[in-house]
C-alpha cells in the first residue's frame, strides 16, 4: 500500500501523470472517493501525460468517455448514475475487455459483479483543504505501478 497527501488539484494531477508511466495494456484502475475528491482531476493528469491534448470532461453524464492516444486505447468510466451493474452489458463494457484497452473506473462499487477485477485501487479522501490518496495493488501489474512511484 502507498499513501500520499495531496495539497491541491495540481498535486492530484501530478500524481495521475506519474501513474501514466506505469500503465500496462489491458490494466484496470478503480477510482473511489466522494464527489469532488479529485477522481476526474487525477484522470486528467494521467491522460495529459499520455499525450491527450484536449480537455478531460467529467464522464458522469455520458457514463463513459473513450480516448485513443498514441499507442493506447483508454476508457474513462463513471458509474455514478448507473442504476444496476447489469446495465454495463447494455453499455458495451464487454467489448472493451480485450487485453489492450485500459479501463479507468470511477464509482466502481456501482458496477460490482460486472466489472473486471482491478489491478490497482485508488481511493481519494478529504484531508482538510487537501486530499489523501491511497493506492492498493491487486495484481502484479498494480504492484509494478506502485514500484514505479516509490
Amino acid at each position, binding site marked *: 500500500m502507498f499513501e500520499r497527501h495531496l495539497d491541491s*488539484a495540481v498535486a492530484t494531477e501530478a500524481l495521475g501523470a506519474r501513474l501514466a508511466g506505469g500503465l500496462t495494456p489491458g490494466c484496470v484502475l478503480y477510482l473511489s472517493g*466522494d*464527489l*469532488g475528491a479529485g477522481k*476526474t*482531476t487525477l484522470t*486528467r493528469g494521467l491522460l495529459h501525460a499520455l499525450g491527450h491534448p484536449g*480537455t*478531460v*470532461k*467529467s464522464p*458522469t*453524464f*455520458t*457514463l*463513459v468517455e*473513450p480516448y485513443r492516444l498514441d499507442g493506447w486505447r483508454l476508457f474513462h468510466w463513471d458509474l455514478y448514475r448507473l*442504476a*444496476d451493474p*447489469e*446495465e454495463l452489458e*447494455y*453499455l*458495451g463494457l464487454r467489448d472493451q475487455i480485450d487485453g489492450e484497452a485500459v479501463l479507468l473506473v470511477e464509482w466502481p462499487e456501482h458496477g460490482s459483479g460486472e466489472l473486471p477485477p482491478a489491478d490497482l485501487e485508488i481511493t481519494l479522501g*478529504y484531508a482538510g*483543504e487537501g486530499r489523501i490518496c491511497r493506492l492498493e495493488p491487486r495484481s502484479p501489474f498494480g504492484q509494478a505501478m506502485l514500484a514505479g512511484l516509490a
Partner: protein
Amino acid sequence: MLILGIETSCDETGVALYDSERGLLAHALHSQVRLHAEYGGVVPELASRDHVRKLLPLLREILRRAGATPDAVEGVAYTRGPGLIGALLVGAAIGRGLAWAWNVPAIGVHHMEGHLLAPMLELEPPEFPFVALLVSGGHSLLVEVDGVGRYRILGESVDDAAGEAFDKTAKLLGLPYPGGPALARLAEQGDPQRFRFPRPMTDRPGCDFSFSGLKTAAINTWRGLEPTPANRADVARAFEDAVVDTLAIKCRRALQATRLRRLVVAGGVGANRRLRERLRELLAELGGHVYYPRLEFCTDNGAMIAYAGWRRLAAGQYDDTAIEVLPRWPLDSLPAVN
C-alpha cells in the same frame, strides 16, 4: 412534409411528429407516458437506458395522438451523435430501418443542433444569427449560430457541465440526486451576503467554463459548517449566485465579441429562475432579446430532432442506408444548409 424524429442519445427516449406546414403534431418522452401494459408490467429500473423496448410503443402512441398512419411519414430523423454508442445505435437502427421499410429518406441529426434549433418550434422564433447558450447536465456550450449548420463554438466547459455541478453540489448538501432544481429552491432562502465563491475562468479572456472547482469550493465551505438548514441554504445561495454570475459574464462576452443581440438559452439549467432573470436584465441592458424553448423542450426530446432533421431533409440532405453513429461529433463540422 411530415417528419418522424427519434432521440436516444442518452437516458431519454423521445419521439415526435413534425409537419413543415402544420408544425408539431405530437411528441412523447418515455417518462411522460404510462405504457406499462404494453411492456407487460412496470419497466424495470435496470432498463432505464434500454431504448429498444420503449421506442415502438412510443411511436405507436404519437401516431395515434396525431391521427396519422405510418404511410403519411415522409422522412425520418434520428440522433446520430454525440452520445452513448449503445443508446445511439438503437435510435439509428430503428430510424434507418423504418425509413427503409417506408421507402422515405432518413437523416442522422446532431444532438446539439437539435437543442440549438429547439426555440424555432415556438410561436416567436429567433432570427439568425444569434448566440446560443446550451447548459444542461451533460453540456455547457456557447455557440455563434449564423444559420442551420453554421456554428462556431465560442466556449465550452473544460470539466463538469453546469447542470452536473448543480446536481453534485446538491448531493453534497444532502439533497437527493439529481437535485439541481431542489438546490435552486433551497438557495431562495439563503443569505446572498454570507459566502462568496469564485467565478471560475472569468478573470481571463475567452468564453470557456469550468465548474469543477466551484463544486470543490462549496464542499470545503460546507464541511467546515454545522449542517443546519440555514447553513445549507446559505451555501446553496452562494453556489447558485456563482454559477449564474459566471454564465452571465460569459454570455455578455460572447454577445460583445459577436456584436449580436439575440441570445438563445437551451438545456435543463435554462429553467433556472435566477439565471433567466439575470439574462433578461443583461439583454435589456444591451438592447436585445433572450429566447427560450418551452420548458419540456429544454431537456432532451424528439421534437427538436424532428425539426432539425426537417431543415436538412428539406434542403436535399439525406443519408445512405448504412447505420452509422458518432459518439463524438464536433458541432462545427456539420455541413451548412442554405
